[in-house]
């Protein structure tokens, strides 16, 4: 009888059922999250894991470090350029996919594959595409006569050395980020477009509004919240990512042409064993992440109210 009563008491059940998840999150997300701040103001290393607080020294030496400053700038360039390209392309792709055509299931599967397949594996395909000698892109350009002979548009050398030249290496990393995020952004946008009532668009069409007028005065304003969500996730996934950079360039060509905060933090903290300095680098994610969190909170509040 007593057991039965506990199984009916919502005030006991509610916290009880939430407890395991709460405990796990506090232990494995909350605690390490706080520790990354503690590490960043300490001098802890793998060799000497005893924590001694040394204040802001790590941050001061970071700000004087060229590698760090390059990574900070690179991270912002990668994020801003990738996200902008992704949003524009995703809008085009979403409009195309919303039309009627044959073989939709197959087209959808292929177009989504960059997001649905593991990125580490997709990046391996790009590694071959961007190879210094055997790059299929270079072969194609040579076939077109745009590369590999005197006076050719892309120069007389037989290869472009995609990952070997700073500018091209950055472009390559951005290309792979765009490739990877385009499907995610497209699917979120399609979900948003489907939720715009058809009557509004039809009414606008009847009133004689052309494509661009509809786009800028009706579709985009109505889609604004969805575009916001898309920007949010695209930013989150590019800003904190190191997989693409790690597989394609490891931050190179030397010294740090494509180094980003995440990869520099990994190099310093895990490979170099300097936990404190590595944590201090990762702390620079925090302001942007906090900004994203505030936007999520605002959106979520709206979702709860409506």
């Amino acid at each position, binding site marked *: 009888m007593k057991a039965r009563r506990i*199984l*009916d008491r919502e005030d006991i*059940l*509610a916290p*009880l059922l*939430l407890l395991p*998840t709460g405990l*796990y*999150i506090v232990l494995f*997300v*909350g*605690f*390490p*999250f706080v520790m*990354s701040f503690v*590490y960043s103001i300490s001098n802890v290393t793998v060799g000497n894991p005893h924590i001694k607080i040394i204040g802001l020294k790590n941050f001061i030496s970071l700000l004087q470090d060229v590698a760090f400053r390059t990574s900070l700038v690179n991270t912002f360039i990668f994020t801003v350029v990738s996200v902008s390209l992704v949003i524009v392309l995703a809008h*085009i792709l979403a409009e*195309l996919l919303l039309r009627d*055509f044959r073989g939709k299931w197959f*087209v*959808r599967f*292929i*177009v*989504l*594959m960059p997001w*649905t*397949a*593991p*990125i*580490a*594996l*997709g990046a*391996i395909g*790009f*590694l*071959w595409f961007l190879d210094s000698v055997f790059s*299929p892109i270079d*072969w194609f350009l040579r076939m077109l006569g745009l590369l590999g002979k005197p006076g050719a548009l892309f120069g007389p050398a037989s290869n472009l050395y995609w990952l070997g030249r700073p500018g091209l290496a950055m472009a390559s990393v951005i290309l792979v980020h765009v*490739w990877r995020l385009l499907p995610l952004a497209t699917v979120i946008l399609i*979900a948003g477009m489907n*939720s715009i009532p058809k009557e509004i668009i039809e009414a606008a069409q009847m009133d004689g509004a052309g494509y661009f007028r509809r786009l800028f005065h009706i579709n985009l304003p109505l889609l604004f919240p*969805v575009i916001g*969500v898309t920007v949010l*996730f695209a930013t989150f996934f590019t800003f904190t990512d190191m*997989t693409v950079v*790690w597989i394609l360039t490891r931050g190179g060509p030397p010294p740090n042409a494509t180094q980003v*905060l995440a990869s520099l*933090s*990994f190099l310093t*903290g*895990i490979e170099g064993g300097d*936990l404190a300095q590595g*944590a201090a680098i*990762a*702390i620079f*994610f925090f302001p942007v992440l906090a900004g994203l969190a505030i936007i*999520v909170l605002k*959106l*979520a509040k*709206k979702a709860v109210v409506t």
Partner: protein
Amino acid sequence: MKKLFTRTGLYAGLGLFIVFAAAPFYIMLITMFKRTHDLFNPNNNPFFFSEPPTLDHLRLLFGQTLFTTFLLNTLLVGIAVVLITVLLAVPAAFSLARMAGRWGDNMGIGIFLTYLVPPTLLFIPLSRVVAILNIQNSLWSLILVYPTFTVPFCTWLLMSFFKSIPKDIEEQAMIDGCSRMGAFFRVLLPLAIPGIISVIVFAFTLVANEYIYALAFIQDSAKKTIGIGLTTELVRGDVFYWGALMGGALLASIPVALLYTFFLDRIISGLAMGGVKK
């Protein structure tokens, strides 16, 4: 005439996007069957065979590399993480969706926010946790840490799923003599099976995708999961086993992509939150 024109435009546009999306996978498919001699001639067409195809690379991949071990490790970690995720997320989501009221909404948002704490911020402190527990170089390190990114999102997903099921059905069951928990097990849970299946698939694909924790925690070749296994074991210094590498990448990508695509819509409606009204 105008219709024909827009049709052509539609197919041309779609064609471009398909080429862009599929190019790396297409080149994997060709390269995995290409003879080494054919592959390493920069004048040969890289998009097709200049010599007859071969199965040599696949023999190397399955016979002389740890490819199958990497797949098995990924599968093991995936199953364990899925189990933990379901055991943690289902009761939590039930509690938040049905019993906690307004306070539950705020808790739910709080749990979702932890999803925004990226692995690249946590891997350094977590590497210490893993070292202190003495589980470096063990699949246990991944099994313990991966729920940090599966649990928050899956709880959120299930919470909105539970909320979409009308309360009356459970209330009716309680009037008929079920306890609160009994109504959950007998009525709500069976109705929520589609939601739970998408959580299982989503958690599994996230595990297959993960790269950074595995790179930080696992050095032993025989313990590696698929992503780090291929990129570290089949690339030795300057030596790339291109055929085998591409074959492995493609063969591991396809099942994950198929699973994910099948359940994508439900996952996206969770991601899009308030932006999309159902």
